[in-house]
């Protein structure tokens, strides 16, 4: 049950809080409380004062009397005094008296409407009244709302007064048929009947239009008449309106709360719950436009009335919408780029960082949006290393890579154990590339000898694994090598450092692009959550899973999208929304749609944009009726539909003109930026206190030094000998042989190799360059302390 308040139910947000600093001097200090109104002064307080006064009067009436006189005098003289005081202070200041108020209303020349001068310009007020209508009111509220220019609001006042039935009978207002029926009833029964049918009411409708120009006055008149086609509409006398406005003291700058026109209309829209029952889901085929823009939004354009093509306030999407995921669909490549460019420039202005992954061949133009932007092309400046987990946990990363690989292998790779193990090994290596992915070759074993035919067949890698390996080989040996083979030139964490990075993915084959997009998405999803980094995926090939052979990618893309969303703000741009998996679409909560042509696309978009109304009849199945979904087909290129913050309906937007995106000739400055990005990625050395060995060996530094020194002299030394050495030289009891070797090897201070003696293969260790450097560093440190 909604709690009753004097101004109706409490709106979700206090409209005053985000009112822009308008010239209407509205103060938020209104004394108005929505539901926590306080009672003034408890009764005890005045009683106490009175009793004190009585006591004082009892003992010394003179004091009381003189006090009363003093108070009375003060009250009487106060206006005069204050006026005098104010006058004096005004005279002392530089203030000048302005004779004219900032808002004034006067009759128009033809005396048919009111002209209002407001600080924001001239307005025209027109008042229409409707009295003495029939009991049945035929009208089309929606047509009224659509036809009336409500950009600065209008007032609709419906007055209802209960009418005495006897008087109504006397004044012959009851239809004859009913009157006859009443005649058969007794008085008590008649009242009961009337009460049961809802009572008899005296109605009066008063509409005040608030229009911007003179032609609007006539439009308003006709709009109202057209919406409610009754001839009893009358243009009220503007003088009455003027006097009523005068009564309201519009002219005076008093501290009264008032809201008229625009603000009141805003209220109406803001009060969603109220509106819903009247204009909400029952209005067929309508768009709802907000009455005013939100300044904190990233502006994309202005609202437009699709019927009248009148433009309204600015519209954009908010940061929270980006955080819940935004889908940009439809349109042509250039129109999508326009939206993205608008959004990006707004984001940059707001101090966010943006990374755009795109397949757009003209993507280089986007770098015009920011001074410090970088443009990288996969395969040219950027190498994407699919076995570099970049901080993502292996158990999470490897399955994702395998799923991505399915696009390249064009086969289902689930359950390819050997493949998974091989990729896992490569990922663990740390500095591995695709060429390090190997399945231990079991093929040779099968040919080893005649008696080995009983060899268990599960030793062989499965067919799936082999297919996967083929795919991997094609990635580093085929034409894709330029994109995927090698250490990652720019780690993803560095890629997102500039305020705008544009990465272009164009590999020529859908399979490869799919893979590239997947890996890119996985890596970006693995970044630390950062609300100030906005990821824009423009034309994400990997989310296009319609009619593909690997249908299990439905859930895969959904999973990837969810991870991307968890990371932070996300925009996915795709021409055909229907290409996406349904689950994936559901993860994106807001949508900007450009023109769509295919009916399948429209079906999806209509759902997203709230253009379908689902009415649930009591006894019938749910029905879906389209609103203006056909509008999607015929929209102009510069128009978009936008759905916002989970609102039920969407708004048409006229997009702002696109920023200049014509590609410049590449400056040396930009090449420098790219090259620093690439170079600094490879030479990221961290400096820590203490020697490298101390950190690597985790406590057993001495032992590590001894091992390194041994190897420095006797490398390559067989693994057995090194182990023996550690065991027998460890003065500390029970040295952890495995640990020390594993640590040193992992820190690439020692390198495993193999040697063959008389046909037997031995594993050996040798010291690496890094190992000798660490040793030298330790020696240096010791020398310094000595």
């Amino acid at each position: 049950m909604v709690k009753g308040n004097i101004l109706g139910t409490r709106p979700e947000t206090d409209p005053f809080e985000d009112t822009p600093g308008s010239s209407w001097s509205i103060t938020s200090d209104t004394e108005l409380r929505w539901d926590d109104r306080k009672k003034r002064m408890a009764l005890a307080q005045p009683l106490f004062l009175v009793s004190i006064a009585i006591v004082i009067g009892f003992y010394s009436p003179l004091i009381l009397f003189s006090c009363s006189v003093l108070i009375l005098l003060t009250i009487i003289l106060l206006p005069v005094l204050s006026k005098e005081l104010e006058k004096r202070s005004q005279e002392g200041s530089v203030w000048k008296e302005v004779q004219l108020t900032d808002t004034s209303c006067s009759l128009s020349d033809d005396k048919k409407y009111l002209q209002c001068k407001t600080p924001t310009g001239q307005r025209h007020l027109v008042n229409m009244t409707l009295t003495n209508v029939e009991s049945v009111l035929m009208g089309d509220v929606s047509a009224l709302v659509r036809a009336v220019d409500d950009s600065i609001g209008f007032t609709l006042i419906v007055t209802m007064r209960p009418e005495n039935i006897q008087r109504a009978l006397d004044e012959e207002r009851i239809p004859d048929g009913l009157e006859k029926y009443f005649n058969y009833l007794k008085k008590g029964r008649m009242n009961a009947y009337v009460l049961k049918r809802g009572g008899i009411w005296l109605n009066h409708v008063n509409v005040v239009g608030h229009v911007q120009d003179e032609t609007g006055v006539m439009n308003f008149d006709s709009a109202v008449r057209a919406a409610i086609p009754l001839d009893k509409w009358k243009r009220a006398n503007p003088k009455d309106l003027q006097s009523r406005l005068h009564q309201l003291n519009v002219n005076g700058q008093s501290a009264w709360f008032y809201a008229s026109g625009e603000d009141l209309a805003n209220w109406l829209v803001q009060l969603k719950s109220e509106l819903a029952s009247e204009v909400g889901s029952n209005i067929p085929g309508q768009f709802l436009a907000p009455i005013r823009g939100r300044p904190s939004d990233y502006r994309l354009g202005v609202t437009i009335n699709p019927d009248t093509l009148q433009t309204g306030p600015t519209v954009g999407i908010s940061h929270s919408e980006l955080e819940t995921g935004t889908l940009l669909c439809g349109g042509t490549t250039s129109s999508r780029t326009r939206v993205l460019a608008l959004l990006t420039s707004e984001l940059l202005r707001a101090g966010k960082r943006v990374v755009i992954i795109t397949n757009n061949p003209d993507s280089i133009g986007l770098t015009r949006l920011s001074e410090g932007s970088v443009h990288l092309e996969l395969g040219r400046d950027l190498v994407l290393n699919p076995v570099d987990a970049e901080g993502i946990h292996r158990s999470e990363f490897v399955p994702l890579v395998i799923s991505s690989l399915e696009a390249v292998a064009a086969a289902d790779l689930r359950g390819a154990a050997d493949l998974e193990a091989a990729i896992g090994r490569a990922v663990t290596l740390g500095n591995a590339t695709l060429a390090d992915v190997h399945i231990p070759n079991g093929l040779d074993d099968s040919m080893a000898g005649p008696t080995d035919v009983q060899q268990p067949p599960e030793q062989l890698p499965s067919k799936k694994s082999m297919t996967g390996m083929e795919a991997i080989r094609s990635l580093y040996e085929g034409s894709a090598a330029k994109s995927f083979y090698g250490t990652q030139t720019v780690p993803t964490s560095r890629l997102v450092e500039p305020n705008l990075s544009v990465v272009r993915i164009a590999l020529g084959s859908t399979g490869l692009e799919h893979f590239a997009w997947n890996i890119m998405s996985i890596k970006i999803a693995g970044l630390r959550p950062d609300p100030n980094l906005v990821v824009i995926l423009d034309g994400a090939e990997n989310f296009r899973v319609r009619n593909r052979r690997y249908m299990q990618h439905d859930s895969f893309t959904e999973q990837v999208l969810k991870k991307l969303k968890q990371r932070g703000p996300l925009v996915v741009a795709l021409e055909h929304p229907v290409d996406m998996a349904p689950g994936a679409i559901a993860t994106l909560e807001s949508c900007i749609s450009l023109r769509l042509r295919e009916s399948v696309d429209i079906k999806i978009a209509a759902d997203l944009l709230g253009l379908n109304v689902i009415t649930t009849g009591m006894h019938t199945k749910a029905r879906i009726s389209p609103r203006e979904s056909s509008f999607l087909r015929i929209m102009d290129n510069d128009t978009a539909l936008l759905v916002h913050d989970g609102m039920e309906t969407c708004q048409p937007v006229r997009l702002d003109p696109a920023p200049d995106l014509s590609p410049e000739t590449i400056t040396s400055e930009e090449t420098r930026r790219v090259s620093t990005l690439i170079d600094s990625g490879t030479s990221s050395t961290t400096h820590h206190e203490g020697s490298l060995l101390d950190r690597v060996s985790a406590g057993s530094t001495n032992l590590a030094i001894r091992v390194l020194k041994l190897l420095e002299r006797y490398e390559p030394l067989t693994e057995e000998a090194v182990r023996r050495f550690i065991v027998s030289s460890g003065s500390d009891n029970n040295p952890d042989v495995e640990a020390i070797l594993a640590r040193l090897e992992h820190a690439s201070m020692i390198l495993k190799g193999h040697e063959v003696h008389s046909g037997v293969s031995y594993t050996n260790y040798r010291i690496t360059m890094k190992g000798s450097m660490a040793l030298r560093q330790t020696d240096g440190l010791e020398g310094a302390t000595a």
Partner: protein
Amino acid sequence: MTMVSDVSTQVTRLLGQAGMRPRGVQSDSIKKGLLEGQNIMVSSPTGSGKTLVGEMALLRAVTCDKKGLFLVPLRALAVQIFKTMKERYEHLGVSVGLSTGDFQSSGDELAEFDIVVTTYERADSLLRRRSDWLSNLGTVVIDEIQTMSELGRGARLESLIIRLKNSIEDLQIVALSATTGDPDELAEWLGCQLIQSEERPVPLVHKVVTTNNRNRSLKKLVMTTVQGNGQAIVFHRTRREAEAQARRLAEDVGRQFTSEEKKALDQDLGSVENWNVTLSKDLRSLLHNGIAYHHAGLSYNARRTVERLFRQGEIKVICATTTLAAGMDLPARTVILSSFKSPADYRQLLSANTVHQMLGRAGRPGHDKIGFGVILAGSTGEAEEAKRRYFDVILDESNEKEILIPHYDRINSTLGHAASLSEQLLVVLDMLGSATIEDIENGIFGDSFLVHCAIRDSKSPMRVLQLGEISAKIVLERHALPETIQAARKNVLGRTTLREKNETVIGGIVTSLDGGQFTCRFSARLSASGAVEGAMCSCGTPVNEDGILCHHLVTLGMAAANELGNMADYVIPLALMESSPLGLLIRLGLVEGATDGKLKPTKLGRAINRLYLSIPTVREILALLPMTQSTTELLWLLRHVVSIESGMSLDESFDNLVSFLITTQIPIRDLAEQFGMNIGDVYGLFDTSRWLLHAISVLSDLGGLARTLELSQGLADALDNRLGSKFEEDD
């Protein structure tokens, strides 16, 4: 001239007394001047009487009052030849000696013999120890000289020949070789007259059989032979396989014997002659079925028994490992090769020469009209590979059938391998006293077969020898043709984008001039199978059979060497398994600088050289010796180095075996049984152990490690006590 004719008549007389007359290749070599001291090389199939050529040459030396040395690759072969020669010539006043193993002894006692039969390694050890009597050598016979192609021992043999030629004047070299490709190249290097013979006593038919069930096909082949009253030898890759196959065939083979044959066989096995032969139960029961297995794990006597029975025709089938291949004269009608993968490493295939040496046994003179050499292949691809590698295929026009003509590998020098080079560098330095690297490269090694071939071969790399410092560019030169290197230097092979550069891998994309794109990398990482990944290129043949890199890799390597400097110098040699021989020797303290930029071996280096230790063994011993303070640790070290030298993987039971041997009096045979080892292996291990213990004690003495010296000497003495007499009896 009278002298010469005198010698030749004397030799002919001696031969006549021994009951032999020269024929075939023997008379050819005499014609070419064998008895006048001419260097001769004979290349002919097994069974053509090569050994006798060697014997004649040795007799010539003896008649000239010089000594003769007969070198063979295997100890068993040495024993066989020693016995034959002793039988033939000892009563004629020619003393024949035998020396195998025993690298720890100086070999002075061999001075009393006119002819010494020995293995390559022992001869090398003798030469390194500079035994006095070697200067009196007149003739060296090198049997099975094609062994020079083998990794490891090939380099030692080559170095031995170079040093023999260098240090002994007027030395006659007689090289005996099975059929190989391009024998004239080797003959030219040796300075020998070449005598070539393709003549076989029995014609041979080769066949490659594709089967998906090796066991069944093998059985069919064997049984067909046996039913036709022929004999068969089946070669296997491993001992286990050989034994298993013998057991599998036993029943079927046994069924083919008539009761008389069986009785004769049983009688022979139970005869007095075989009383002292230890045959395992398993083998004995197989022998009763007329089948046997044969490998180095059997005791010496058991092997000889098996061979004798086979020669007498009492057993029909031998399942053998490749040890039977070299030298032994043991023909059979059908020879089957069940797998042509190398025993040491299944990823490598046997060389053509080895394969043909095995198959060449097919056809027993006097018994068979035709011999069959069969290779079993598991798949069509494998069969094609076998045909491609080992045969020239000719299509017989009359019946559209393929005729396989054996195709032999040429003999390649293995001296250039980094592992061998460091050892040989030390050997040469010890021989010369002191020398500069350039002297050695151009002097002694300049005379090597390696350089000899490289000069004549247009496909040899730009640089064949590298003893000193090593860098990425030098390594590339070691693995690329001169033209490729020139082109790469001029940067005309293609563009390179380096994509990987870290401590272990250098990789990149090479875009060749025609736009082709290749992914190449040098990786020093270990692959999952335990081998270094090495060079990889997406063109498919990163390294060809001669070890030459494809030109994409050369391009990458050059670019990396220019761009990355030190890192490339580190990674690329590692990836190509190259290291600086000199660097290693200096690091281990075996070589030091002398005056005038010369190098000389240290005291340690000289000792090691004479101990005949391989460099990896030295490295392991030196690294661990200071840590060896107790018997357990010493035993561990011993086990480790024994397994490196012998190529057997040993576990803790070796330690126990040695302790048992020293502390108890249980006969070795019983010990072997108790530990589940083959008696032949156990003797081999003890022999190696004695030598290495001796080496350890010498090294600890040099290093001043009293405790280790004491321990190792004690152990060595104990071993000597237990084993001293045993060896003689067994041989």
